[in-house]
């Protein structure tokens, strides 16, 4: 595709992400000046408390936010292209719900050694199991949607199905919660609020590794994703093996969203809003531009949300999802209104030009 000047916005977004990353390290219940943050990062901070706050608590959290935001955005981008639906996203299609079934099964229904002890005791291994379970749950839902999507073309119907899957997951989870021990339920509920701060430094490589695999798969699918923009039949006549390309792309989306959901809980809205924002920023539909673009937009939004969640200061932290919803819901609502308006005018257009005989 013709290259539009996409370097400048990429650099600007990267700079914004870096600035927010540093701000995220500085802001919190204990305010640390930027110089102190940098000294701590360089391991030459005069204040051991600052150093420990920055390196042990805030750095993993900021890295998690950046990674998770980017991964959710790219996952949403893939889903929107594959389903040709601007409202598709990890949460609107019920993939977050699928991941929560996986997590609920691991946390709540695990044997006597399960639950909190399972997570606390096994450290990164426990989280790996959790990530695997969430990814499996995410993929199961995606697979289901894929089957339905073959028969249902309508975007709204797909979203309703996503909603129904969400309810289904919700009811399964509440059954598990009802029969689970209070301790395990506490762990599970904590997970559902969504947070970037639960990931510790030794768990980061697991999250990062899963996301890296997801990105690698995504980059391999860049070319067919572009061909899918104009429909599956169009892609097929261009020599794309559509089925395989679609499964590879959706596997990438499930791994990206599943891993993030496992570690950070079901993070809402980012997956839909970030790719939409990226398209508008870059004024492009080319995935070679949009994949890095959406990842950066996602990282920026996630870091910004994390900073806002520290706003009360003095020890109290707002949960992540309500903040993202406050920002994300209006964006999605405006997209939906604009989308249905455009759809309406298109329908009128083709009716007026009906063809005889």
């Amino acid at each position, binding site marked *: 595709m*013709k290259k539009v000047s996409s370097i400048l916005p990429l650099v600007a977004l990267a700079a914004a992400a870096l600035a927010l990353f540093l701000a995220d390290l500085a802001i919190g219940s204990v305010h640390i000046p930027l110089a102190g943050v940098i000294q701590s990062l360089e391991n030459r901070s005069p204040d051991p408390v600052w150093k420990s706050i920055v390196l042990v608590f805030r750095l993993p959290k900021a890295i998690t936010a950046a990674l998770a935001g980017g991964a959710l955005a790219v996952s949403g981008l893939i889903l929107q292209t594959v389903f040709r639906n601007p409202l598709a996203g990890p949460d609107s299609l019920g993939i977050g719900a699928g991941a929560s079934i996986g997590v609920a099964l691991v946390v709540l229904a695990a044997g006597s050694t399960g639950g909190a002890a399972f997570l606390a005791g096994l450290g990164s291994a426990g989280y790996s199991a959790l990530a695997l379970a969430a990814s499996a749950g995410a993929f199961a839902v995606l697979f289901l949607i894929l089957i339905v999507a073959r028969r249902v073309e309508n975007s709204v119907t797909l979203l309703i199905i996503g909603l129904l899957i969400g309810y289904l997951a919700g009811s399964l989870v509440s059954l598990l919660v009802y029969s689970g021990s209070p301790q395990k339920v506490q762990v599970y509920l904590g997970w559902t609020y969504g947070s970037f701060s639960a990931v510790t430094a030794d768990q980061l490589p697991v999250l990062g590794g899963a996301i890296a695999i997801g990105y690698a798969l995504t980059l391999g699918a860049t*070319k067919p994703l*572009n061909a899918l923009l104009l429909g599956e039949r169009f892609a097929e006549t261009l020599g794309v093996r559509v089925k395989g390309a679609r499964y590879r792309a959706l596997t990438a989306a499930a791994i990206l969203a599943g891993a993030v959901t496992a570690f950070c809980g079901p993070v809402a809205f980012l997956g839909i809003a970030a790719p939409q924002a990226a398209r508008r920023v870059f004024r492009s539909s080319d995935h070679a531009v949009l994949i890095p673009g959406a990842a950066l937009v996602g990282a920026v939004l996630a870091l910004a949300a994390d900073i806002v969640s520290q706003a009360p200061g003095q020890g109290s932290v707002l949960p992540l999802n309500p903040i993202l919803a406050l920002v994300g819901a209006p964006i999605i609502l405006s997209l939906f209104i604009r989308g249905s308006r455009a759809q309406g005018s298109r329908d009128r257009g083709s009716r007026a030009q009906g063809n005889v005989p």
Partner: protein
Amino acid sequence: MRAPGNGPLPLRAKKLAIGWKGRGREPLSSGIDLVVDSGDFAVLVGPNGSGKSTLLRTLVGLQPALSGSVELCGTELRRISVEERATRVACVFTDRADSGYLSVFDVAAFGRYPYTDSRNRLGPEDAALVERSIAAVGLAGLEDRRFSELSDGERQKALVARAIAQDCPLLVLDEPTAFLDAPARVEIFHLARVLAHSGGKAVVFSTHDIDQALRYADTLLLMDRGHRLEKGAPEDLAVSGAIGRAFDGESFRFDVSTGSFRSAERGIGLKVELVGPEGPIKDWTGRLLERLGCTVCRAGSEASAIRVSLLDDRPAFELGGRLVQGYSELARLLEELLPD
């Protein structure tokens, strides 16, 4: 004009059966033999539900044949990989998709997709071919326009440009004139014929526009309600009555002498004779009479005569001792003279 190819036939179907697989399902149509050579413009027509799209999908491998074979450039479709197939046949289907920020150039550049590397980068020759394809369909200057902002006709042309850029010996277009207004439809027909005759492509084109099909096609492929395929020069199929058999309904019928469809109701049913100088005024009087369901008789018959002339630069008509000016007045007069 036409330059028949010396190479392998771009498209050949032998004893092809098409339809949907399933227990207890009969093939929609079987025993289809079909050849489309380079430089040949074949137009597929047929009533709704006759199986035009199913046939086209089967010919390009988007749907498996139930039996028989399809050969693209001498190789059986089954032996051609999906990637290889995209270098032998380029298709234009009328799927409507949200093209987002794709420009006309982007859409046309998809034609190079089968030839580009894994990052889909266009080489200078690719880009030049894309530019030439856009110019060939008459969209030069609109390369950077967003595809979604084009008119329906321009959009169809951009998709044809994409098919040209794909550089295949066979072009298959499924109803490219649907949703288009009359001038845009003629343009697409013209373009397709130029691609066949001057570009040396084999072009297969399905349409509901029989009038244009009869004017432009080298070969007419006619699918009737019984899903039988007849093929031949459009004139042969018109004269043999095949077109009439395929399309005639209760309310309209194919008029062999004019090559168009007419209402089956007879209307006024008056017999008249036209007298006056040859020219557009007399021709259009004939069309008016046809529209009203009158029969135009040869000179010397018993029918009442309409005298056509020009009075003060306006068409004038004399009928039964009365003189009227303008076609609407003539129509009114004819209705007054209704036999009932």
